[in-house]
């Protein structure tokens, strides 16, 4: 691609690794230096990724900033990276959230700071790799490799049941992934059978003729791996444990980025590779998505631990994303991608806020709080904005994503859209009720009256997220327009592959902005 001034995606991946090397030679006792170095490296990565954003050409549907090199030629696997409108928002989300998570760890992590920061940077490298890898084997290496730093983050710096939680997290993910690995290999051999070329190149594999029956099996294997990661009901049980036990930054990246790998996997791999199977599975997955939305919301309502509540709300929110993806039209899919970013921002911010109050009170039990808005006005304001974003208040980012998903789904399946809308209402119930119990009323503990409000560093963590929440809420077009071409290409691919299969009629694609999208649904 012409816009590359060098292997920028590789640099994004390698930079944190260089940071790791740098950290290994720093004396572990110099914690201040270690923290600042880690922040600087991840911040530099953020700046680099902004270059990708600026130079990204929204008119192009295909991959940009492509890098390709021989890797394992004998099995047809290559080092192949690229970014398109689907992965760009997630790439930016990753590079944006990592420095924030690192900054948020400055106070919460008291022990083994060096090892912690090494894990954070390894995780950043792995997460970026997942979103830019376009070779199946390479993708798998990143996908599983980033389990290692997350495993340590939860297991070493987590809460009291951290070992149980981290093993559960790793085993669940592995169990789904290994079958996907077999499906990847089987897919490559099938492709070799029909074309004579053994390759793991995603772009080459897309559109290959695969018998319908085989497609169903392969899709199921991919879908299992991704559904566990999302997580969709009934594969969600690892999530609350992992979230509750993880340190704040671990929860932020887990909810903010790792869960998106599942939904991203559907869009990047499962849909384009197995379009007919995806259409066949769409009703089942949509039903599971609706169950996730409602179940997650209902369970959130009865939680007494703030982190657990947010964890279950993630199940509900990711249900929306899945519903939108399998509605398979432009609005819903773009809404889903946007909602992935939104959820990363709002849930990430919620975990950060909970982490801040936990550092002050060493509890996350809702009943322990009350009346915090009087003692912590700045904290309460930030919490309010983020809560509203999570609920989907118009003017904030959550509304745009949810509206697009619901509007898109409504055209395909009215029933699902109606049930999902119920989830929006339930979200308002559990979030506002939580806010009310924590922020308003009488303080139920004397300690709550003497807490310090959030300081400069904490504001520096929250303000960028809140600005993005507002910016996307008021002007989502720059992001949406960068998705258009790639999403249209994806849906066209699915449609042409399934032309003989009846799929629900879809409206003509709308190429305008957010306003046009809204009008076109009326």
């Amino acid at each position, binding site marked *: 691609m012409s816009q590359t001034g060098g292997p920028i995606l590789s640099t994004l991946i390698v930079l944190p690794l260089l940071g790791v090397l740098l950290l290994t030679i720093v004396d572990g006792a110099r914690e201040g230096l270690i923290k600042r170095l880690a922040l600087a490296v991840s911040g530099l990565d953020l700046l680099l990724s902004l270059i990708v954003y600026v130079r990204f050409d929204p008119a192009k549907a295909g991959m940009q900033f492509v890098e390709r090199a021989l890797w394992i030629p004998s099995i047809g696997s290559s080092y192949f990276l690229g970014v398109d409108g689907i992965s760009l928002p997630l790439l930016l989300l990753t590079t944006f959230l990592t420095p924030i998570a690192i900054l948020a760890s400055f106070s919460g992590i008291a022990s083994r700071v060096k090892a912690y920061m090494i894990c954070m940077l390894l995780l950043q490298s792995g997460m970026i790799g997942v979103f830019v890898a376009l070779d199946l084997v390479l993708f798998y290496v990143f996908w*599983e490799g980033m389990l290692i730093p997350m495993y340590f983050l939860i297991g070493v710096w987590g809460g009291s049941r951290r070992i149980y939680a981290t093993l559960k997290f790793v085993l669940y993910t592995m169990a789904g992934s290994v079958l996907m690995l077999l499906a990847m290999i089987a897919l490559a051999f099938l492709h070799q059978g029909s074309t004579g070329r053994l390759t793991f190149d995603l772009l080459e594999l897309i559109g290959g003729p695969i018998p319908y029956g085989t497609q169903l099996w392969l899709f199921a294997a991919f879908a299992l791996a991704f559904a566990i990661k999302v997580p969709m009901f009934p594969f969600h049980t690892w999530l609350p444990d992992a979230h509750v036990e993880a340190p704040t930054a671990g929860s932020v990246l887990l909810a903010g980025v790792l869960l998106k790998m599942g939904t991203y996997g559907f869009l990047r791999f499962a849909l384009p590779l197995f379009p007919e199977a995806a259409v066949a599975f769409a009703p089942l997955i949509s039903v599971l998505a609706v169950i996730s939305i409602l179940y997650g919301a209902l369970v959130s309502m009865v939680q007494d631990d703030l982190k657990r509540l947010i964890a279950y709300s993630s199940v509900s929110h990711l249900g929306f994303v899945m519903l939108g993806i399998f509605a398979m039209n432009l609005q819903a899919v773009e809404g889903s991608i946007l909602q992935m970013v939104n959820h990363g921002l709002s849930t990430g911010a919620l975990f950060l806020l909970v982490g801040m109050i936990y550092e002050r009170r060493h509890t996350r039990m809702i009943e322990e709080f009350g009346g915090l808005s009087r003692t912590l006005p700045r904290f309460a304001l930030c919490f309010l904005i983020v809560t509203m974003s999570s609920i989907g208040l118009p003017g904030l980012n959550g509304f745009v994503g949810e509206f697009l998903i619901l509007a898109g789904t409504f055209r395909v399946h009215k029933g699902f859209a109606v049930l999902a809308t119920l989830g929006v209402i339930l979200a308002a119930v559990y979030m506002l009720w939580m806010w009310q119990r924590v922020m308003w009323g009488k303080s139920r503990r004397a300690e709550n009256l003497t807490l310090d409000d959030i300081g400069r560093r904490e504001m520096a963590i929250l303000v960028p997220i809140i600005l993005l929440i507002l910016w996307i809420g008021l002007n989502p077009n720059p992001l949406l327009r960068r998705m258009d071409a790639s999403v249209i290409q994806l849906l066209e691919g699915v449609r042409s592959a399934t032309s003989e299969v009846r799929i629900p009629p879809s409206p003509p694609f709308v190429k305008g902005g957010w306003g046009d999208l809204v009008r076109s649904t009326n």
Partner: protein
Amino acid sequence: MELVLPQIDWAPFAPLIPVALGGLTTLVTDLFLPPGRKYLIAILSLMAIAVSILLSIGSWGPVLDSDLGMVRYGIHDAVVLDRFSLFFYLVLGLICMLTILLSMGYLDTAAADQGEYYSLLLFSALGMMLMAAGGDLIVIFLGLETFSLALYTLAGFWKADLRSNESALKYLLLGAFASGFFLYGIALIYGATGTTMLRQIAAFLVDGHPPAPLFMIGGGLLLVGFGFKIASVPFHMWAPDVYEGAPTSVTAFMIAGTKAAAFAAFLRVFLLALPALHVQWSVAIWVLAVLTMTVGNLVALVQSNIKRMLAYSSIAHAGYLLVALVAGGSSGGASILFYLVAYALMNLGAFAVIIALQGHEQERLLLTDYAGLGWQRPVLAACMAVFMFSLAGIPPTAGFMGKLYIFSAALEGRYLGLAVIGVLNSVVSVYFYLRVIVIMYMSEAASPRSLVPASIAAVLAVVISVLGTLHLGLFPAGLLDLARQSIAAVAG
């Protein structure tokens, strides 16, 4: 009467000769060295292995140029020099070298019996190399016996330690039993075909002779013999006790070396002599593979001694290798070659860490002994973590790439069920490998421990292994190409 001596081409023996000479000289040199200089014996052994490795590397190119078949034979067909043999000469050389390094950290350098130890080690390596190069069942048997006899003695090397004695005796009794099966199998095959040469057996089968019952029984007995040596279920009973009781450096050598040598011969017999019987063999091996993987992994879950855990893990890994053997063909064969290297690196590396952590003092082998080590010995513990992730098959490590090749070979051979059972097994194994890491990093030591300085030699072995494990995980293409070239010599 004139005695007709066979024409002997010495080239195939070239890499074996320095090992044999090394074995003899270490024994003699020991007599003349004062106690303070005994470490020279280990250096001498290292040099012998290094010369062997250099000779193998030197033969790699010429072997291809020699003639069409890419093969040279010493003493008729009995000892084969092809890239397959050379590959195993190199792998066994690497294994032996790492073993010497970790033995240097393990044995008391002042002990009197250094000469015996390294001499036995080199002779056992010699037997393994001979087994890998055998083109005749008799030569394969000779190699097997040579290394087994040396290992029986090495397993009992701690003469005053009851568990070491038990280990040696168990290994001897059951090993002799297995050798009996093996030899009986050779006899029956000879009865059926009139030859013990692998190429002639293959020619006999291809000529349209239906495999006689005698032949099938003979083949079955060979399978039992191999099954014992690679410790596949249900012939694995000896392995945990022997591996646990033997001196740790010997256990490491047995786990890596025996498996490589036995699989080399197994592959050559299977791919060269018996391709006509692939269907019959593969059914039996399919069952063995599933049993071996599953039993090995399930029993490893509940072990509390790290040597015993690694023993069951090595059984499970024999199962993965059998999966590739069932898959057959050049992909299956190449994946076995690749995996054996990965397997040797990660196992020897793990044992090197165990040895580096304990020094010359009392053995610390319970998993709980490792509590908190991640923070007390960060570098060694991090290396151990790499080996555990590699054994569990998590990228970016050699273990992952090895499993990727094995399971893709299985799918290429259309053994979907076997591949699924295999990957699910590797998920089970994640639990007990990660438990080591949990203990090292996520739990505190019960009592403060005095740390001994790690021996430099053992640390060197750790560093070589960890670099190899990561290198093969990130850049596997080079070794995979070598493996493919090597397997071409036997799989055609």
